[in-house]
């Protein structure tokens, strides 16, 4: 037992309708870099949140440094020596580096001067030259990461978990991170390294676990894996009847986007055909949502041209986009899609009120029919039409939003993470819906972090990496690994 810093046995975690973790067991020895690989939604961050005390586990045991831990709060985990570096750093931008490192523990260092002195020592110990008095807000991404690592060291952590550490680093900064990881390993500190980027996994990690759909697929020393084997295990889900047969209604080009450029996006050009499902694949933060928000007029992008059925069309805001026949199911359901205190009916008929108004008066009766029709056709499980949206399940809420757009029969429907946090049953219904839309002559742009979903539903796939389109594939003809390769870049 001595040589394992962390033993996780049969840990489970259930969210309404979704099994996030299903009997996960891992053992992390001391002083090694332990890689965890898996797609979005495979359960990686849920596991980390349980270890750090943000979530409660629903079953199984966690033994850290020989001590079984029942339930813990973030600060207790830190004090025990287990610290986490999240993808978007947990730092206070308006405070100095020294203060961030010793946040909440100023008394121990007898005031600010002691704090900054200690911070200086720790920063020197990992060879960083950052001044402890600079504001964290003014630091670069890699400097912020240094601060997070130093913060972990300030708790003399025995285990540091890094969630997607390389997502915002340049290759040169990545090398420096590698050096530091090796230094930590030599000091006997073990590191859990979570990442998509396989070449980092191969370079730094000693043992690697592959997670998929909340289950551990395989745990082996990194040497015994081949790259393709790892990707296959990450991606290769046996596709029983999880997806309906792909729809084949691709017809003439409908929408064309020419040289879309913003701070984040670099000359995006693509066309969308009538009856086609176009999938956008890429890592988190690659710029997929930015593309559709610029297209839809939600963000103020300039200088790009949009052609609808060949004719140039001017889309400056969502209203013009809707006039041009577009609809958007946003990524963040709670903040951008739903009005939780409102009734199911109110949420469904939101987009089609304008069509129902004559001389400025909204036709209430027609509104009720619309809501009823959508609830029946999408089989939304809700006690009455006027129950509040907040009391519905995730799947039903999503169906309401999709129903909101189906009502105005858009030519182009943009779906941003349509099935995130939804149970498998509801997912299947949404897939059927998508096919029905495409069948009746509409077109769909779909963004999803679940590779199998995109590959099985789309007629064509574009891979996006760091704001650029890096590849175009036909899912039938190319393998998941090929596409994944381009998406990772």
């Amino acid at each position, binding site marked *: 037992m001595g040589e394992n810093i962390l033993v996780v046995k049969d840990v489970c975690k259930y969210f309404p309708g979704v099994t996030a973790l299903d009997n996960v067991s891992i053992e992390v020895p001391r002083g090694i870099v332990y890689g965890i690989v898996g797609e979005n939604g495979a359960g990686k961050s849920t596991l980390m949140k349980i270890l750090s005390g943000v979530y409660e586990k629903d079953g199984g045991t966690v033994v850290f440094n020989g001590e079984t831990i029942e339930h813990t709060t973030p600060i207790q985990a830190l004090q025990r020596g287990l610290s986490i570096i999240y993808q978007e750093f947990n730092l206070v931008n308006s405070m100095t580096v020294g203060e961030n490192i010793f946040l909440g523990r100023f008394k121990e260092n007898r005031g600010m001067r002691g704090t900054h002195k200690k911070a200086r020592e720790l920063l020197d110990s990992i060879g960083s030259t950052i001044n402890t008095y600079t504001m964290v807000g003014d630091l670069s991404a890699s400097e912020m990461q240094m601060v997070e690592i130093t913060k972990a060291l300030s708790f003399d952590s025995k285990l540091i978990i890094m969630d997607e550490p390389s997502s915002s680093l340049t290759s040169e900064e990545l090398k420096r991170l590698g050096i530091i990881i090796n230094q930590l390993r030599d000091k006997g500190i073990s590191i859990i390294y979570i990442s998509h980027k396989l070449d980092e996994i191969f370079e730094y990690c000693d043992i690697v676990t592959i997670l998929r759909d909340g289950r551990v697929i395989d745990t082996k020393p990194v040497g015994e894996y081949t790259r393709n084997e790892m990707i296959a295990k990450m991606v290769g889900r046996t596709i029983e009847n999880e997806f309906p047969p792909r729809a084949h209604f691709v017809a003439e080009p409908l929408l064309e986007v020419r040289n879309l450029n913003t701070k984040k996006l670099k000359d995006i050009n693509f066309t969308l055909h009538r009856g086609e499902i176009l999938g956008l694949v890429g890592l988190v933060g690659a710029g997929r949502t930015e593309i559709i928000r610029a297209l*839809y007029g939600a963000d103020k992008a300039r200088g790009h041209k949009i052609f609808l059925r060949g004719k140039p069309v001017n889309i400056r805001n*969502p209203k013009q986009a809707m006039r041009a026949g577009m609809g958007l199911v946003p990524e963040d359901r709670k903040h951008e899609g739903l009005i939780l205190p409102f009734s199911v009916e109110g949420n469904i008929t939101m987009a089609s*009120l304008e069509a129902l108004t004559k001389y400025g008066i*909204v036709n209430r009766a027609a509104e009720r029919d619309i809501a009823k029709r959508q609830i029946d056709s999408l089989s939304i499980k809700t006690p009455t039409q006027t129950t*509040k949206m907040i009391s519905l399940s995730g799947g039903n809420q999503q169906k309401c939003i999709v129903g909101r757009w189906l009502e105005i029969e858009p030519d182009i429907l943009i779906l941003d993470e349509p099935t995130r946090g939804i149970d498998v049953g509801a997912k299947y219904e949404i897939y059927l819906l998508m096919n029905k839309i495409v069948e009746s002559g509409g077109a769909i742009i779909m963004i999803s972090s679940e590779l199998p979903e995109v590959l099985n539903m789309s007629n064509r796939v574009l891979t996006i990496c760091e704001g650029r389109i890096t590849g175009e594939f036909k899912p039938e003809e190319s393998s998941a690994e090929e596409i994944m390769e381009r998406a990772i870049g």
Partner: protein
Amino acid sequence: MKRDISARFTRSLRNNLVLVGIIALIVVTAIIEPKFISSANLTNVMRQLWPLPFIALGMTFVIIGGFIDLSVVGMISLSGVVAASLINPLGQVGAILSGILLGGMMGYLNGFVLTTVGAMIQAEVLFITFGMSSIYTAIALLLTNAETLRIARSTKPYNIFTALGSGTVGMIPVVLIVFLVILVIMHLFYKKTLAGRSISLMGGNKEAAFLTGYNVKRSMRLVYTISGIMSGMGAVSLVSRVTTATATSGIGYETNAILCVVVGGTSLKGGKGSVIRTMLGVLLVVLLGNCMNLLGLSTFMQTVMRGAVLVIAIWLDNRREL
């Protein structure tokens, strides 16, 4: 089955707490002070009610839209002063209309400033409308040099003006009839028209409304224009009742209006709310004031009571689940 009835009863009770409050208040005060339900006192209450309902009506729309409007103080003063001083040049009907029109223009200016500056959260809106209010009050002070304008001094006839304020048709004050007409119009506007619905959608979730094609900035300007028009009408009704207009006549109406709206049951979070319930709030607040007057409590005790009721109402409103 029994548990279900009691659940529905408590829920309906909680929803129209205001109605219960009003009835309880009337019963209790009638017992203690029989003069309370005498016709003289009721007409007195009817008369002292104004211009609060107008301002509360305007404020309801602003709060349903998810914002707040502290500039009513300045708008009431300036519209009232302008209306009173324009009786001579424009005649009384022209004066009344110009007062209301000026209110609307000031409301639109508020909306315009807030949208161009891109004020979204409660803090920004609160302070900018407070700033606009002191600007309008200052202009009113400059125009009248802080003197009291009396309608009686104007040469042109002003009978319609005063009739609007204190005239009565049978037992019912004229201004009440005018107000009820406006109340019905605004209620229908809110419930039935697209513009009305877009205000409540904006209040519910600004980003969702924007993404479903609603022009949030236009709704914001509309809401503040309504508040301006209502302040104009309130100012005219106040001036016609008191036959004088001063540059400080609007003081205190903004907190009272918010009190009526929140006590009525419209949530400060925006989205849900109703104009009718605010009127019940107005009735409760005024009856509370009147009953305390008759019980001999000093006017200052009323301010304490109003402050306490406002704080408790906001606290309960915040705890009420969505």
